[in-house]
């Protein structure tokens, strides 16, 4: 089994990253700020505007280390990807399936089923753990709607109708999302999903979490030899990592949504860790982002048992394992793609 390695976050805006003797070196105004061997790294997230040296990017892509650039505010900019690697036959199968609407739908409905199943579990879990504090009726109603939709989605053969089911389910899920927030309700509330820019604290954290997860998924797909830009549910669009977004669907609620809710409910994140911009955008500030990433990394190290493989692994390896299962389905070793169904 692959070992979960560390992730390096470069939060200082004016850092320049370079390669030196198989090490990533962080240069600042005052000189060397630090250096880490590439050997122990899984991915690098750079929030600085000064960039990185081509030699470093080359070394990272060669070793399968994901390298992601974000603006100092945390908005995704670019991801380094090197000379195409992996198995060309596998990638061609992927393209063929992506071109065929029927087979695409076969894959897409697995992703959607996973998404609906996991979203429903999040709602059910709130009912189970905090039955006396929440609006049980509303949550139960949404949960049963999600499970009914999941059953329908699993039978669907038309991609557009499938998207319709997904949209309805997402609306229903986000309608009761606010019920899951139990503490600090005055400052953290969820009314509607807003992005570019996020207009409240909860949306800011959701967006940030989703962009971290998307990069992880894309890196995982590339590492098993798939093309992260050619998706089944999300259609092709230049610059969009459609397959990473597909793979992410089933992980959104268990990976990011629950994580954000836990941060709020355990008061690990506080209202003062956000900045409000002139245009109404709400963003995590430096302290907030550090807290977020600290807990995010700790969570990635938690041990779980994979529900399909029945194997112990760390949370952070889940995107990688799912990418591997997807590749096995494309190769014909599995009859269908088994989504990550968490309970």
């Amino acid at each position, binding site marked *: 089994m692959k070992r979960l390695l560390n992730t390096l*976050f470069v*939060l*200082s805006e004016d850092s320049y990253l370079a390669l030196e*003797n198989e*090490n990533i070196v962080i240069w600042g105004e005052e000189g060397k700020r*630090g250096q880490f*061997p590439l050997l*122990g790294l899984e991915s690098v997230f750079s929030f600085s505007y000064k960039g990185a040296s081509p030699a470093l990017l080359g070394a990272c892509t060669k070793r399968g280390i994901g390298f992601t650039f974000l603006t100092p505010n945390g908005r995704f900019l670019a991801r380094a990807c090197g000379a195409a690697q992996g198995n060309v036959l596998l990638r061609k199968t992927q393209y063929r399936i992506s071109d065929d609407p029927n087979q695409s739908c076969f894959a897409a409905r697995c992703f959607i089923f996973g998404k609906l199943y996991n979203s429903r579990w999040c709602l059910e879990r709130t009912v189970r753990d905090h039955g006396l504090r929440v609006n049980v009726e509303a949550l139960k109603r949404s949960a049963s709607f999600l499970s009914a939709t999941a059953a329908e989605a699993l039978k669907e053969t038309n991609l557009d109708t499938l998207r319709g089911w997904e949209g309805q389910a997402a609306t229903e899920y986000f309608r009761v999302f606010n019920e899951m927030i139990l503490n600090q309700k005055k400052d953290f509330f969820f009314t509607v999903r807003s992005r570019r820019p996020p207009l409240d604290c909860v949306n800011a954290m959701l967006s940030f979490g989703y962009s971290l997860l998307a990069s992880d998924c894309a890196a995982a797909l590339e590492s098993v030899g798939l093309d992260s830009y050619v998706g089944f549910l999300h259609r092709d669009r230049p610059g969009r990592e459609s397959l990473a977004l597909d793979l992410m669907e089933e992980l959104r609620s268990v990976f990011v949504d629950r994580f954000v809710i836990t941060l709020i409910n355990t008061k690990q994140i506080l209202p003062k860790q956000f900045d409000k911009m002139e245009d109404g955008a709400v963003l995590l500030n430096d302290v907030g982002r550090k807290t977020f990433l*600290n807990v995010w990394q700790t969570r990635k190290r938690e041990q779980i048992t994979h529900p399909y493989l029945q194997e112990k692994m760390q949370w952070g390896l889940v995107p990688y394992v799912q990418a591997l299962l997807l590749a096995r389905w494309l190769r014909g070793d599995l009859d269908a793609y088994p989504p990550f169904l968490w309970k």
Partner: protein
Amino acid sequence: MLVLITYDVNTTDGEGKKRLRQVAKQCVRHGQRVQCSVFECLLDPGQCKALQAALCRIINMEKDSLRFYYLGDHYQTKIKHFGVKAGYEPEGVLIM
């Protein structure tokens, strides 16, 4: 597992200075320098063997010495630092 590597390279002649540079360079690739000729490397068993072989090729068995301390997977409780230049935790959160 965490491996602590220490070395003593005889630098009385030019050859020795060259070996010292090569050993240091090889160690920097695999871990963090905690003191002058002391490195902490987080390696899996395969990487550890490869690093050992590489270092043994460089040193002169007659003049230099090399020591490996295996601290295992739960090394956090086995290390205590005093004074300046505290290292980083290789499995901790790396935020710069």
